[in-house]
């Protein structure tokens, strides 16, 4: 490949944000190494600035038609929209990190890892080549493994969580890659576009191997997406991770992995979609059921949120499962579904983790019982938490309702109504624990005995500025997407997805 072709390859259009974030990451890494601990705040802000700049670049990208560079990176609808979401997520996480960094006494080399995770995530959504996708996936994963282990306050849980994440993630990567290797073997291609063209013949000639490859890929991604029964690392990792990292792995890596899964599965396997995607449907159903069911009896707040995110992953999987029966005309609908709900989910989850962080740090609350009297002591914070929980439960006036309803309409449209029914039925199951938390917040505190006084510190919970901004933004996002969903839905309607 000559230099000339390289230059003609619209690198900036496809990889601009990635470059910016990557460069920021390196700068931040270097600075973190040399600057004294006192200027950590500045460094995190610098990282956030980099993300903002990347966002600006991305907006610029959106104004030009989709490009493909190096047969690897693309700036199609899915790439740009998910990149936007990822950058927004990254920004929120970084802001949250600003405060978490202080309170959790994390080692300073954390901001750049967040940025590298973001780079990986961006690569996952922009790449259309299996090799690049894999690199992105691993970049994100490895950064996350490290990040999870960085929580000093609960050292052991942190390391253990990270260890479990790493082992399971490693197995997942291997399984995923093993599946991918068969695809490569059958077609000799790693470019998704080429694979998409070969998809039908792949299915017609080598159905057996294709099924195995499909399942391996699904299981590999399932581990990353924490789908049931591959989800079991999730609560432990969430419990161990610093709050900002927990927010990161529950949102950023989910968004990126879902986008990747959508691309990989749909591009490679649409030839046999009718036979293959029902597996995903079943997986989605099991995930929704088991995720909610597991959260039902959970009292540890982090683990509860972890299981809830498992369940939410089930909801998010529905649009992908629907590709099995959807006609090409209906595909954009499924993209819309997925991205809209991902956006909603991101706001809800980061918001919830932000509140949870304050609870943990300032009131030393880890269990649901600790929420007793929360509503009375910190009404605004409690109100925000309630909004996030209502959103997760899919109540109207939050984006959760619109998102779920939208996914549901797609299940009806594509004739997989049973999945829609499971969606709403398990939502009712989730009422029990989401509203259970709300209920606890309004309980008056019980008389306390010695150590049982956990979380019942007097007075309001102080809200640091950065976290406050995060909560406010998430609140705004949640409510805006519920009250005026058009602000996201209408742009989504215009996106040329593929």
């Amino acid at each position, binding site marked *: 490949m000559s230099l000339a072709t390289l230059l003609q390859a619209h690198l900036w259009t496809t990889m601009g944000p990635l470059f910016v974030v990557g460069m920021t990451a390196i700068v931040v890494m270097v600075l973190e190494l040399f600057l004294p601990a006192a200027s950590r705040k500045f460094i995190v802000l610098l990282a956030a600035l980099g993300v903002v700049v990347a966002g600006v670049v991305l907006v610029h990208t959106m104004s030009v038609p989709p490009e493909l560079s190096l047969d690897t990176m693309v700036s199609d609808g899915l790439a740009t929209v998910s990149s936007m979401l990822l950058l927004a997520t990254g920004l929120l996480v970084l802001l949250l990190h600003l405060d978490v960094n202080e309170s959790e006494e994390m080692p300073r080399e954390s901001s750049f890892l967040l940025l590298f995770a973001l780079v990986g995530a961006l690569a996952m959504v922009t790449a259309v080549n299996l090799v690049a996708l894999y690199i992105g996936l691993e970049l994100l994963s490895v950064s996350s493994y490290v990040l999870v282990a960085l929580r000093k306050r609960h050292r052991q849980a942190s390391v253990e969580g990270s*260890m*479990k994440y790493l*082992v*399971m993630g490693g*197995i997942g990567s291997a*399984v995923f890659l093993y599946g991918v290797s068969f695809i490569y073997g059958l077609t000799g291609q790693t470019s998704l576009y080429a694979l998409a063209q070969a998809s039908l013949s792949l299915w017609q000639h080598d*159905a*057996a191997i294709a*099924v*195995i490859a499909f*399942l*391996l890929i*699904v*299981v590999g991604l*399932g*581990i990353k997406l924490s789908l*049931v*029964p*591959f989800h*079991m*690392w999730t*609560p*432990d990792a969430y419990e161990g991770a610093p709050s900002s990292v927990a927010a990161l792995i529950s949102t950023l890596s989910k968004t990126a992995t879902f986008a990747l899964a959508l691309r990989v599965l749909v591009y490679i396997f649409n030839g046999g979609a009718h*036979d293959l995607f029902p*597996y995903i449907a079943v997986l989605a159903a099991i995930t929704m059921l*088991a995720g909610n*069911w*597991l*959260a*039902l*009896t*959970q009292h540890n707040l982090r683990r509860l949120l972890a299981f809830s995110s498992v369940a939410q992953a089930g909801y998010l999987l529905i649009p992908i499962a629907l590709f099995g029966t959807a006609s090409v005309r209906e595909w954009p609908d499924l993209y819309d579904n997925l991205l809209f709900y991902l956006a909603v989910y991101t706001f809800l989850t980061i918001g919830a983790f932000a509140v949870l962080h304050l609870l943990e740090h300032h009131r030393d609350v880890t269990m649901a019982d600790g929420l007793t009297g929360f509503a009375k002591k910190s009404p605004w914070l409690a109100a925000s938490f309630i909004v996030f929980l209502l959103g997760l439960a899919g109540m109207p006036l939050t984006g959760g309702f619109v998102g779920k309803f939208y996914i549901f309409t797609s299940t009806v449209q594509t004739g997989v109504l049973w999945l829609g029914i499971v969606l709403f039925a398990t939502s009712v*199951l989730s009422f*029990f624990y989401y509203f259970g938390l709300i209920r606890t917040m309004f309980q008056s505190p019980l008389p306390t005995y010695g150590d049982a006084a956990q979380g019942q510190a007097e007075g309001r919970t102080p809200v640091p500025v950065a976290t406050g901004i995060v909560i406010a933004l998430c609140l705004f996002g949640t409510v805006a997407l519920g009250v005026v969903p058009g602000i996201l839905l209408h742009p989504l309607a215009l996106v040329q997805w593929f």
Partner: protein
Amino acid sequence: MSMLALLVPLFPLLAGVISFFFRRLPGAFHATISVVLLIPSVVFAIVLFLYVHAHPGVVLRQVIPWLVLPSFSIHVGIQVNALTALMLVIVTFVSILVFMFSYGYLRTDERLSIYYSYLNLFVFSMLALVLSPNLLQLYLFWEMVGLCSYLLVGYWFAKPEAARAARKSFVVTRIGDAGLFAGILLLGFAAGTFNDADYSILARHGTLALPWLSEPYLVTLATLLIFIGAVGKSAQLPLHVWLPDAMEGPTPVSALIHAATMVAAGVYLVAREFPLFAESHVTMTVVAYVGAVTALFASLIAITQQDIKRVIAYSTVSQLGYMMLALGIGAYADGVFHLFTHAFFKALLFLAAGSVIHALGGTQDLALMGGLRRKMPITFYTFLAGALALSGIFPFAGFWSKDAILGAAMAKGDWVLYLLGLIAAFCTAFYIFRVVFLTFAGAPRDEDLHAHAHEGGWVMTVPLVILGLFATFAGFINTPWNDDFLSRFLTATKTPKPIPASYSHWPLTSMAISLAVGLCGIGLAAWMYGGGKGFRKVPSAFKPWYALSRNKFYVDEVYSWTVVRGGKLLAALVDLVDRYLIEGLTRLVGLFFYGIGNVLRYTQTGQIQTYGTFALVGLVVFLVVAVFRVGGVF
């Protein structure tokens, strides 16, 4: 003219409203305003009666739309025909006397305003019922009079018996009302209107039918259902149980509602629907037999009752049975005639009994009375007039009307009915003179009470005297001498259509027999209780029969053991099901979800390798399924 008819019920309504809202004013005010405002009603009622008499066959009708159903409109308003006009006179006339009497009777009661507002509401409802242009409005006020009865029976609500009796009166009549309700709706749907004037015509044309029931059956079913309503209201067998208990209310109330007017509404209803009833032979037979059996049955019970009001209450049941009997055998005019006379003499008996009770400070037990003739002469003579009327002794009112019924039965040749009626007539004469003797004759059985006994002042005696006159002379309205004035009046109108006069000549035989039977009854009573003999020992041969009668043939007990307890049992069962089964199931579902959640929770062992194993199992299951699918198994 129709405006007049409209005004008739409005005066008592006005009086009721005034009484209700000006509670603080003294009792005399309420009594006065009630009586005064009822005077125009009485006058208008009489004017209407005369008007209808002057224009035979006229039907005054004035309606406004009340509710528009998708299939037709329902109207409310007034309708006056001969029957209505007669009823208006009866109701307003008896009411005004009772209003007067009440003040004497309840002078010291502090809730007199409530009493008068209830009573006025009752009169209004009764008048509106009578004036109803269609069956639905009739039903509306049918229930309203029931409500007023409930309220007045429960007037002394603090007495547990009164509270129970009030509920019982409402619930038992409600059973009948349910039948009436069904009947009205069936007819309404079949005919497309609630105007009952059209029903008999439709029935005769054979167009009265439902999708699931053809014409003759529908008429029979509907009339039987309506008759159930009448049975409930007029306390006929087997729904008579509420009326004796309703005597817990103030005595004037018993006189007005439970003797003269409301209980007669059942008879009025059957009379009103007579043309339709006449279309169904089955119904007519049922009506006649229910009436006859009730007449006898109630009079048998009345023989042995200890409570003066209960005796008269059973007598009412019995007399209403006569009216039903009359209607059932087709003697329409005679039935209504008996209603007319009965209203006077029975109101009289109640009021006189009330006077006695008032004099004795509230006691109603015959065993504590006696010898009151001298202390309360007006009461005695008026009561005697009533008793003679009730016994059917010439020339008192009851003689003419009761004999007309028996004569009609005889003329019809239905000997069973005739005999039932005759035996009842004998019992009637016996039990009422038993009361007369026990109350007024002989020596006082309780000196204390006797010493304080006195007449109740002019507000009480004037109504008694007026009613006494009517009880004596009202029968002359329908005698062969005046060419059966009332019968002609009633049958002259087109609706209800004229029916053949039940008998057209002097039924001397029948008159003689019933007079003789009545005198025998009185004689027996005189022999047993006359001359202050007081209660006789019952010969042991009659003991079981006596007990049977004394205990009202155990009807209440039967109901209590079957319907009431059955219902309560069922209710308790439902309660158990609800509290334990359904609540339990709800909890079980909750436990199920929670339990499964807990089981699932134990899979989170904290061991990485368990996690991996679960993932592997998942993969393997998928692969196995895939293999089977490729192999065509799934």
